[in-house]
Every structure is written in C-alpha cells, then in structure tokens.
C-alpha cells in the first residue's frame, strides 16, 4: 500500500487566508436572489399604507386589474382565511399581549409602510404601475408615536382588541434570583447615587442588498429563494404559518448581501410571494426598492433607559437598577419582544455589582416593528452602563479608567458568577486595557485635553472609554428555554470525505458576508490534515443542509464552527477503525496527524484519502462499519461566549459649530482564539462603523403623522468613507473555556463597544461647559444645542424628543446630522 505524501504545512487556524468567497464576488459572478429568473416567472409589487394608523374602509382594484400585463391583484380581504398571522417565536412572559399580524392588512393598518395589496404582473415595471391604480380609502385613527406616552393608561391604543399598548413586562431581580442583594437597599445606603435617562434612538439595519424573494411552485416542493439570514427558520415558519407541509418547502439563501440582524426575520413579503405563487401556479419574484426596505423591513434599538446606580465614595459600585421602555413598533415580529431582554443579562457588564434589578416594558406604537439589529439588546445595555461609569467618574472626579479598574472582574477571578446569573468563563480586562492605553497614548491625550481647556480652544478634545463585554454565541438551548425562546440554540454540521479525498462540510449556519466558507475550510482542513483547497462548504439550502439554526448573535463560529470540528473528529474516529483493519493493527496503535494514520513504532501507515477510497469501494471493511467516511454532529453549546475589549476614542468637538471629528480610535478586542485574523479584523472594522454611526449619524425619524422622514439613503445617514476614521485595532487572546476551539464571537463586538466610547468622548470634550449628555446621534446640531443651552443657563440643554419620540417639537425636521 502506497502512502500519499502529505507535506507538513503551517496550521490553518490563525492563518490570514484570503477568502474563497471573493473570486465570484469581485467579478460579478453572483447569485443574489434578484439575479434569478425562471421560465414563466411573474413579478410581484406590494402596495403599502402611506398612513400610520387607519381603518381600511374600501379598496378598489378594478382599474389595476385592467392594467397591461397584470395577472392578479390581491388584497388582505382575499387572503384573510389563508394568510395566518406572522410568527413571533419569543413570548417573553406567559401573559404577553400579541396582536394579530396579517402579512397583508385586512381591516386596519398599524404603521406607514404596512402591506395592503399586491400585484403580480409580467414585468416589475408593470406591477409597479398597477399599484398606482389601486384605490384605498383610509379612515384615520390616532397615531401612537412616543413610547413613553404610549405606555401610559390614557394613550390611544395601537391595537384596540388588546386593551393596552403594553405588551409585556419582564423583570429580573438579583435578590429574588439569589444572585445578589436587594437593589433598593443598595440605593438607599448609597454614598453616591446617580440617576440618568438615556435614549436609544431607532435605527435601520440598512443592509446593502434590498430584500428579494422568489418562489417556484412548479416542482414537487415549493422552492423559496430569499435574501435571508435564516433559511432553516424560514422553512419551518412558512410551514407553521401557512399550514403547508414542511417537507413540501425548500428554502435557499443564495448570495445574501448583508443582514446585520435585519434579515433575521420571517417577513410578510416572503409569505405574500409564496401565496401569490401558490395562487398563480407559476414562479413569482418580489424585489423591494430601498424606500420599501426603509419603511417595511424591521428597525432596531429604540428604547428609553432609566438607570440608577449606587456606589461608595471611593468609586466602588454596589447596585444597579435598570428600567426600560422598549418600542416594539406595531407588531411582534420573529424575536421582537426578546431583543431588549437580551440586554437584561448585560447591564452589569464587567463590573462586580452586589445587587441588580432589571425591568423592561415592551410597548406598541404605530411605527415599523423593531427586531434584531447588530448586537440586539447588548449594544443598548453596554451603552447605558458605559455612559454610567463615565458619569460616576465625573461625579467623583476620578479618571474613567480608574473607576473601571476598581470595579471590574480581575483576570484571576474567572470563572465568575455575575449578579445577572451568568457565568463568565474567562477574560483579561487588565491586559486588553493596558494594551489599548499604550496604543492610544492615553496620558498624552489627557495632557493635550487639559491644555486645550486651559487655552479655551474653540475645538475641544474629549476622551471616551468603553470597556465592554457581551454574551454571544446564541446559545445554550436550556438558557434559551429559560428565557421562553421558541427554539433551541444548537447547530449542525456534517463532514463527508469523498472517494477522491476531497471534503464536503455541510453547515447549518447561513453566511451573508462573514466568510464562513473560508473559515470552516480552515477548521476542517486542520482537523483532517487535508489541503484548504480540498474543502468545500455547503450552506444556505435546506435541501443540501437540512438541519441548522442559521446565522445571528455571533453564534456561527462558536456553535456552528465547533459542530464542524466535532463532526471532523467523528470522521477521524470512523476512518481509524477502517485503517486499523486494513493495516492489521489495533486502533490504539494508530497515530493520526497531518492527514495520515501511522502505526506507532513502524513506518507503516495510510493517508485519510486512502481510507476514504477504501470506504467507498467497501471491499474490505471491518464488521459493522458502513461504507462511507461521513459523520454529523448537532452541537449544543454549554455556555455563551464572552468576548470583551477596551475601546478608546479621542474626539474633537468644534464648540462653535457642534461638529464632531474622531481624531483617534483604538480598540483591543479579546475574541479568544482567532481562526482567520483577516476576517476577524474585517468584522471588527464593520462593527465599529455601525456603532460609530449610531453615535454620530443615524436615526430613523418620524414626523407627527408617523411617516418615516428618513426613508432613503439620502436622509438616513449610513456613513460613507469620508465619515469614518482609520481604526487602530489589536487583540489579546484569552481562550474561551466553554468550547474546544477557545473561540468567541466577533460579529457584534465592534458595534456593541464603540457607541459609548464615541459618546463618552463627545461628552468628555464639553463636560466642563456643563454638558452631561448629548442625545444620539450626536449631530452638529445636537452638540451645538447642548452647548448653547449649557452655556446660556449653566444647565443641560433641552434635548429634542420631548413627548414626541424622535420628533423635536422645536425643530420639526430630521436632525440626523450632517455630512
């Protein structure tokens, strides 16, 4: 038997492999859903409500039906018996109020942008033209826009039948849970007590590829292509919502152009495209315009956060009370109610609070539903606590880093049981902070800040700190169960060694830009000792990848990657028994390394590729061994992973114009073992961009009628290349102990950490003028108003939004910022 020589090569894990995915993407050889056309395909267009809250008194489709090229016009009344109600998989409390959520509004619309009718036509243009010929009579009802007003008993109702706008109230109390003391006592006994209210503005995920759905009903199964993060969840939900057999639905997520949580959704449009295809018996494609995305795809964040913090005079924190109002928008989408609850376990962050209480009330308004957006609950929590730590430092005239050092969990205290009931497995906040401080030139910048203050420069310098952690890698199924989530958190993988020795890895994760194909290839190539190029990763099609829970919550590597590694190990175990049989030795005498089994103490052995061929021919296999080298694993993680890091931002604030310029941004993240440093750095960069955008640029603004005024990319300020600084990044590596790779999630870390770093810097720059807060986004106007208010009255400026949510009564125009 001849052995194929396998040259020893450097390990794949930790190697900056260029991505396999790029070859198609840089040449335009792509498979976006909208790229696809099928024989006989018709195009779907959706008519949307221009008003936020109204009764539909009549819809006349007569004219639209007569338009050229029109095949079918459908209203909510036509579908009332067929469409079911859009699913919500996270009933956070047993008594949660859930409104009926039709894909196509039947009697009433509850937000501007809600679908009220749809047209199928020969071309997209003809379908769009016919929308204009549909005549809808709306009887206006009172809009409900401000979340605080909506939560009051005297508010007009979004859903009359629920009798309230409050969907649920969710509470965690450390005294009740036995994880800590009584927060009210801590606040009573506090030497220092801080009370602050922060506003998490409403954001729009703004993935670059608008959503698109294509449904082909002409096969034995319905085939659904969708620009989604969650093909597996979508398949199950189509079945459960529409009463179609799950085995009759195949979902494919082809190339997907970004998601950021925005495509972690089961959408009305997916149901509508399916129902139209069912109705017509021919393929139907729907592709949205950007303006449609902005009003109808879910939004993110949107919370009012009230925090009370108790501390001793030396800066030691003792208690934290958090009271949230979370704006659900008009309906509960897939995981809407659970998003703010994900933050519940994170407000205590890296600090050793003795007592903690979290209460969140979920409230309906007549606005686009909210749901996951990059970070999903944790950015909100991290923002609030990191702002509070800076406020505490200011209150005590301490350095903000010193306050944090005094309170954080030391590296020798892990594993650490937190006051919120989680166990942080590992971390080294000292190391990350020391490195960041060194890179940043912390003291020099503080010196410059002092000089500028003394000189009274018009441009002041501020330094913002954010020492964050987050919980990701959703998630241990038992934890999700305890949070009443409607599914588990496992992930599935199958590894197959083909007869020629090439390898297929099937994963249940569903990448949309993250680079799983490259990273999973590295993981499996290392494990099996095969070349990186010989590994193919199959994903995003419920036919080729039948089991999985998809990609969100920075879970893919820590859960799905680990599943692929464990499946590889099972392949090796299987191959070992075949190799032992063929080499006539015991399994215990075989060593496996670099893709080769060797009989210990001899020069005999065989390569994995040879075992694969032997398994395929099956001429001589040991008793009971099946003729293949395939293995699969469903992996349920034992814990979350807890990436952490220290982010430092130096911002210059022009006190005459309010303009903020980020002068320097340094972050040192600890995401455990790094599989591909190139991909990790890319994830950090992108995360930073979105977190900085929340701090400085982005806000979904509604006018007093509930119309989204930031419904294009001209009005909603997704930053361009000139709006963002150069980032200086580094890493420390403290391995996670909860998975065999030592990896932690990285997808959301940058977004979670950066927002408070930037806002802390802005406030720090102008705090000596009496400013204690600037509401996000810190646009020139907001900063200037904060400054002018503070200077005029020595008090904090009246910020916008009083009573009208995102609307500034004094300035009824979008205040999203300037370019």
């Amino acid at each position, binding site marked *: 038997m001849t052995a194929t020589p396998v040259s020893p090569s450097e390990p794949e894990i930790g190697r900056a492999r260029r991505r396999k995915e790029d070859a*198609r993407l840089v*040449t335009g050889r792509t498979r976006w859903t909208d*790229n696809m056309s099928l024989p006989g395909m018709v195009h779907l267009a959706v008519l949307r409500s221009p008003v936020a809250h109204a009764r539909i008194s009549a819809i006349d489709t007569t004219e639209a039906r007569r338009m050229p090229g029109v095949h079918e016009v459908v209203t909510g009344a036509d579908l009332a018996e067929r469409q079911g109600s859009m699913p919500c998989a996270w009933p956070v409390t047993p008594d949660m109020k859930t409104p009926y959520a039709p894909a196509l509004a039947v009697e009433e619309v509850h937000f501007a942008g809600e679908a009220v009718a749809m047209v199928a036509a020969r071309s997209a243009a003809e379908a769009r033209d016919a929308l204009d010929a549909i005549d809808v009579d709306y009887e206006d009802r009172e809009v409900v826009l401000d979340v605080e007003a909506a939560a009051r008993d005297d508010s007009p109702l979004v859903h009359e039948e629920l009798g309230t706008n409050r969907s649920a109230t969710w509470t965690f109390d450390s005294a009740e849970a036995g994880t800590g003391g009584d927060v009210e006592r801590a606040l009573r006994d506090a030497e220092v007590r801080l009370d602050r209210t922060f506003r998490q503005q409403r954001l729009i995920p703004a993935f670059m590829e608008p959503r698109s759905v294509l449904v082909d009903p002409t096969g034995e199964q319905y085939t659904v292509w969708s620009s989604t993060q969650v093909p597996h969840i979508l398949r199950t939900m189509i079945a459960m919502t529409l009463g179609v057999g799950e085995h009759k639905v195949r979902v494919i997520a082809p190339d*997907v152009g970004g998601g950021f949580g925005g495509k972690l959704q089961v959408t009305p449009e997916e149901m509508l495209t399916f129902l139209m295809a069912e109705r017509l018996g021919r393929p139907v494609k729907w592709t949205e315009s950007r303006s449609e995305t902005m009003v109808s795809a879910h939004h993110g964040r949107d919370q009012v956060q009230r925090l009370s913090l108790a501390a001793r005079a030396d800066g030691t924190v003792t208690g934290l009370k958090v009271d949230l109002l979370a704006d659900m928008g008009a309906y509960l989408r897939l995981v809407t109610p659970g998003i703010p609850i994900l933050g519940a376990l994170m407000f205590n962050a890296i600090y050793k609070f003795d007592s903690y209480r979290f209460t969140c009330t979920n409230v309906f308004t007549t606005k686009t539903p909210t749901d996951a957006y990059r970070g999903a609950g944790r950015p909100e929590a991290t923002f609030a606590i990191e702002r509070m730590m800076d406020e505490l430092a200011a209150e005590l005239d301490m350095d903000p880093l010193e306050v944090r050092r005094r309170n954080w969990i030391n590296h020798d205290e892990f594993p650490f049981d937190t006051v919120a009931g989680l166990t942080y497995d590992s971390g080294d906040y000292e190391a990350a902070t020391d490195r960041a401080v060194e890179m940043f030139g912390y003291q020099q910048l503080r010196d410059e800040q002092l000089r500028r203050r003394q000189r009274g420069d018009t441009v002041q310098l501020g330094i913002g700190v954010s020492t964050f952690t987050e919980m990701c890698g959703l998630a241990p199924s038992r934890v999700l169960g305890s949070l009443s989530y409607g599914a588990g958190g496992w992930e599935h993988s199958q590894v197959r060694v083909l007869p020629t020795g090439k390898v297929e890895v099937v994963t249940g994760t569903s990448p949309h830009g993250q680079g799983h194909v490259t990273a999973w290839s590295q993981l499996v190539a290392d494990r099996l000792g095969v070349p990186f190029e010989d590994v193919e990763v199959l994903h995003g099609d419920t036919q080729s990848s039948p089991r999985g829970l998809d990609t969100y919550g920075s879970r893919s590597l820590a859960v799905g990657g680990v599943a692929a590694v464990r499946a590889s190990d099972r392949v090796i175990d299987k191959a070992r028994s075949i190799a032992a049989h063929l080499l006539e030795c015991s399994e215990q005498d075989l060593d496996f390394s670099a893709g080769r089994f060797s009989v210990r103490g001899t020069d005999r052995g065989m390569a994995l590729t040879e075992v694969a061929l032997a398994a395929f021919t099956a001429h001589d296999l040991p008793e009971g061994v099946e003729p293949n080298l395939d293995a699969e694993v469903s992996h349920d993680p034992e814990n979350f992973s807890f990436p952490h890091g220290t982010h430092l931002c130096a911002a210059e604030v022009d006190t005459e114009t309010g303009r903020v310029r980020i002068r320097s941004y340094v972050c040192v993240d600890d995401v455990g073992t790094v599989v591909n440093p190139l991909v990790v750095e890319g994830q950090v960069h992108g995360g930073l961009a979105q977190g900085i955008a929340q701090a400085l640029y982005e806000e979904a603004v509604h006018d007093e009628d509930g119309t989204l005024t930031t419904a294009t990319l001209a009005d909603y300020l997704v930053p361009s*290349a000139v709006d963002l600084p150069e980032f200086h990044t580094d890493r420390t590596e403290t391995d996670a102990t909860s998975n065999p790779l030592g990896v932690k999630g990285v997808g959301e870390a940058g977004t979670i950490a950066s927002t408070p770093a930037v806002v802390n810097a802005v406030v720090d720059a102008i705090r000596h003028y009496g400013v204690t807060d600037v509401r996000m986004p810190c646009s020139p106007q907001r900063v200037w108003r904060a400054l002018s208010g503070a200077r005029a009255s020595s008090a904090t400026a009246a910020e916008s939004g009083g009573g009208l949510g995102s609307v500034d009564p004094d300035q009824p125009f979008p205040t999203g910022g300037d370019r």
Partner: protein
Amino acid sequence: MPRITVDVDGTTYTDDVSPRTLLVQYLREQLGKVGTVVGCDTSNCGACTVHLDGQSVKSCSVLAVQADGHEVTTVEALARDGRLHPVQRAFHDNHALQCGFCTPGMIMQALDLLAEDPEPDDERIREGLEGNLCRCTGYQNIVRAVRDVSRQMRPGAGPAMEHSGRTPAPRTSTEQADTRVTGGQS
C-alpha cells in the same frame, strides 16, 4: 420604443427599450448583466456604478437611451483570461469586501478614481469613494486596497484596458483630471 445600440463589455447589442428604462435595468433585465446591482432608488449607494466611455456613472441615473452609441463596461469585463484585474486582486488581497454587494460598484468607482489620480492619498481615496456606500467593511480595507493597487497600476490603466477600438480612445490622466464625472449627463 426607441432602438439603441450599445457596446457592453465588448459585445454590441441592438435593442428596443422603453424610454423610461434605466441603464441598470437594461443591463440586468435585458442583457443578463446581473453582476451590476441595484442598492437604492436615490443614487446614493453607488452599487450600480459602471463605466460609460471609460468614465464612472451610476447606472441607475442614466437612461438606457442615453447609452445609445456608447460603450459600457461593467465589473464582469475586468477579469481577462481567468486573471483578475489588479483592482479586483487588491480587493481580494486586502479583504476589502464582506457580503460583496457594493463591490462591483466600488471597484468600478475605484478604477475611475485611479484614472483621475493615479497616486491618491488616503483622504483623496475616501473622497473619491464617497458616493459608494458599504455597510460591511467600515471602508478601511477598501481604502487599503485602492492604495495598494495605485502602486501597481499605471495612469489610465482602467479605461485603457476597457477600450475596444470602436469608441474614442480613453482620456489621458490629464484629460481625465479636466473632466468631471457628470452622472451620465454628457
């Protein structure tokens, strides 16, 4: 319907198009050139950027009829004989893309930028790409890729290699500098 003749990626097409058809719709829906994509409806995102006679335009802001008699180059024409164009290679090498949806437009705009200024500094690169939005990368690696490729490409390399001989020769870098990108309004 008006009849137009357009050279797209080296092939000449003659088609009847509706007057309101946008160039990007013509490319995607009639010619199957789906490598060029649509990301917005207000000309903000730049995902649909192509070259019209060697000059970058947002193909959502050009009518198909305006391309009559002109030469269009999309991202699909850049790689030759199985070899990536240097800009494509630089995007790959520098991890300048994640989901890749903005990438075709970003690459076509980067080429235009380099034709105009063969040795741009970072600030100039950022300004030159301001009309192209990316939601994944934070732009840093895109800037790095363009800086990287500027060292490898000679002035005017982009338009020159697109030139098929049926249309006027590409502008020199001096001519390019004197010409403003007009968004298709020639």
